């Protein structure tokens, strides 16, 4: 399945939830926030939110800044 992840086209396995995708990418879910098609995905719904073809996902975290 093809999605846009942090601005880049990417192929991922079919049927993944947001939680599943984070695990697939090796990301600790509690350290990040996810936006799907410009909508925030609440952390509590990571396991139940299924990713679909063409989704645009942003995975962000806190970095050093002023």
């Amino acid at each position, binding site marked *: 399945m093809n999605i846009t992840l942090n601005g880049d086209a990417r192929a991922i396995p079919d049927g993944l939830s947001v939680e599943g995708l984070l695990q697939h990418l090796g990301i600790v879910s509690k350290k990040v*926030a996810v936006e799907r098609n410009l909508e925030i995905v609440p*952390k509590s719904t990571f396991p139940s939110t299924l990713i679909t073809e063409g989704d645009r996902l942003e995975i962000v*975290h806190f970095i050093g800044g002023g």
Partner: protein
Amino acid sequence: MNNISSPTDDSFVVAGRRFSSRLLVGTGKYKDFEETARAIDASGAEIVTVAVRRVNLSDASQPMLVDFVDPKKYTYLPNTAGCYTADDAVRTLRLAREAGGWNLVKLEVLGDHKTLYPNIIETLKAAEALIKDKFDVMVYCTDDPIMSKRLEDLGCCAIMPLAAPIGSGLGIQNPVNIRIIVEQSKVPVLVDAGVGTASDAAIAMELGCDGVLMNTAIAAAKDPIKMAKAMKLAVEAGRLAYLAGRMPRQMYADPSSPLAGLI
């Protein structure tokens, strides 16, 4: 006995949250996360600003800021650095709230790459949307008393005028405006951006500011840890001097030693 015998008796309250340090520091531009953590510790800051950025997907296992600067120990203040429109700023802070789970944020909407000067029109729009969405908004703004008042009237919980452009280290360029903003505001006023060295921070506090927010002045010092300590002391000294009430300025000398009994 004066009840303000030490700075710890004089707490700083923003959006109902109480802090003992009046120095807020950024977490950018350090050599590495270890240095960031040590500088923050030396500064005594309890609130640290952080930016929101995409996770590096090519190496998701690399260390993250939260591994070094504990969000349980420090209050993370997510910023919107790099946002040039109200929409981008609001979107960024909604993500930040989801990442961190809190609603105290620093709004900055920039107008221009060269000066990083605030775009107040977009800032007002973003502030309105964020406040409606139940954020507590500390707002980076120009040192314009009229716009500062507008932002306060919208419901911002702290007004943060610049001393000078971000990262310039030029110090307070318009102390008169800062003082006017301090006098007219009912919410905390913090100088944000432009501080270069300890005396600049002390001047901000002597003008009656409730706090100072800085990043580059510490991170770009030759010895950031030492400068962090210097800034802590400067903010405390400036605050105490403000509370003490300075002597009046006068044109001519006034001897400190009595003239009576002179041989």
